[in-house]
């Protein structure tokens, strides 16, 4: 098999792996979220669920339009573009209906944000969630 074809195949395989790279939901352990269904996650990230069962206010970690987490979240859960999703978040904040989200564009910053305040929830790559600090936990989803 020609070497160029093999290289192209490897590149395509790597890209496919990157596109499939999953994100997991992370919160603080004291938020006490055992499991969330896909609908429940949609409700949290669309501001319909504003309070966790322990009483803490839901605070989202969102990124810029170019952040991988946002580019994954918006089409996966809402079937919209990243800018449409972020515009909706801004509108809810401006209405006073939603607590201002925290901003992070990478795993490390997202984990810092989640650790910083009770009730914060954000998306981290599966790789980034392999070694979480003790006070953080992955929230299993259906």
């Amino acid at each position: 098999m020609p070497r160029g074809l093999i290289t192209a195949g490897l590149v395509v395989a790597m890209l496919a792996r990157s596109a499939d790279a999953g994100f997991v939901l992370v919160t603080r352990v004291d938020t006490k979220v055992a499991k969330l269904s896909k609908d429940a996650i949609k409700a949290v990230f669309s501001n319909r669920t504003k309070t966790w069962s322990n009483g803490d206010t839901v605070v989202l970690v969102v990124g810029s339009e170019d952040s991988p987490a946002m580019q994954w979240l918006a089409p996966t859960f809402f079937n919209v573009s990243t800018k449409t999703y972020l515009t909706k978040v801004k509108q809810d904040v401006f209405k006073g209906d939603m607590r201002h989200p925290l901003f992070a564009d990478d795993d490390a910053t997202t984990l810092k944000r989640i650790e910083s305040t009770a009730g914060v929830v954000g998306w981290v790559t599966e790789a980034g969630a392999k070694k979480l600090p003790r006070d953080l936990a992955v929230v299993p989803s259906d």
Partner: protein
Amino acid sequence: MIHARAVMFATGLALVSDQVARADATINFFGDLDYHVVKQDTTNNSFQASSLDIYAMDTERNFTFIGELIAQTLGGNDFGVDADRLEVGYKAAPWLHLSAGRIRTSIGYYADAYQTGKFFMTPVSWPEMYEGSPLDGFDGIVPAHGVGVHADVARELGNDNGKFDLLNGRGVDLGEIAAFQDGNNGKAINFRLRYHGEGDLEGLIVGGNVYVDDIPADATTGVEHVAMHELVLGGHAAYVTPMVHAVAELFWFRHREHGTEVLHTTLAGFGEAGYAFGDFMPYARVEVLQASDMDPYFTTSGFLNGDHQITSAGVKYAASASVALKLQASVDHNTTQNGYEAITQAAFAF
């Protein structure tokens, strides 16, 4: 000496703690830059940079603070500063949110769906009945601003949502918000009940309002009017999703002059619809206003409430999550002459 150092240390610690506690305070900027062409008796065109909205929000446990200052021109080239929102909220329970201060009233759909953020709106501006015409310097007839207390009750079972406002109510004219002294002792009461759709109906909102107030008299020569009792009934329906934008509202205003049985009634409504093709959303809006006669409260405020109809069409382009570009043309049909308007707008939210 030790005591003084301890005080200094404690003060420093308190300052640092305060900075940490307030770390999530945020400030956003909203505004728009326009190029505007209007034709009535004559044709005028202008570039406009006429409003800047500074919005701050902070939360601490169950308390929320919202402050919003708007620097804007109203019918001239001089900027005025207005505290559009000054609001402290308290979440008493997941289903009960209380707030007080200067607020956007829970009336109709537009008042608190978009607040002052043109970036979020599909057309370039509010329907005339909400904000009037900043170009001509008159305010809208819907009581969308107020000072008082507010309760937001979301029923846990089902999707109904009730909002209640107790406010100082109208000032002596449409432009006055009684932020310091009410013009009379009567308070305005506003109640809105809504249904929010879920599942296949997600994006649907249907609701209605009852608003009752007493309008103080104005003895100012040239714009005088007697005190009036006001009743406003309103209904609204909206279906807003990322692809579809459809909003319709109808308000009926009844003013009864004190001491007489003279009634003035005004019917105002609009419908607007748009559909997204990628980042572009073409849209159209029709506004209608019909009045039983020239309501003295509205006309002395500068609102021209003769019967008229405004038809607008345009396109919104979502350039980014912070910038929207819009192009809109409008025709204002009234009994004497038509007015034409074209606006190119860059609206932003940072």
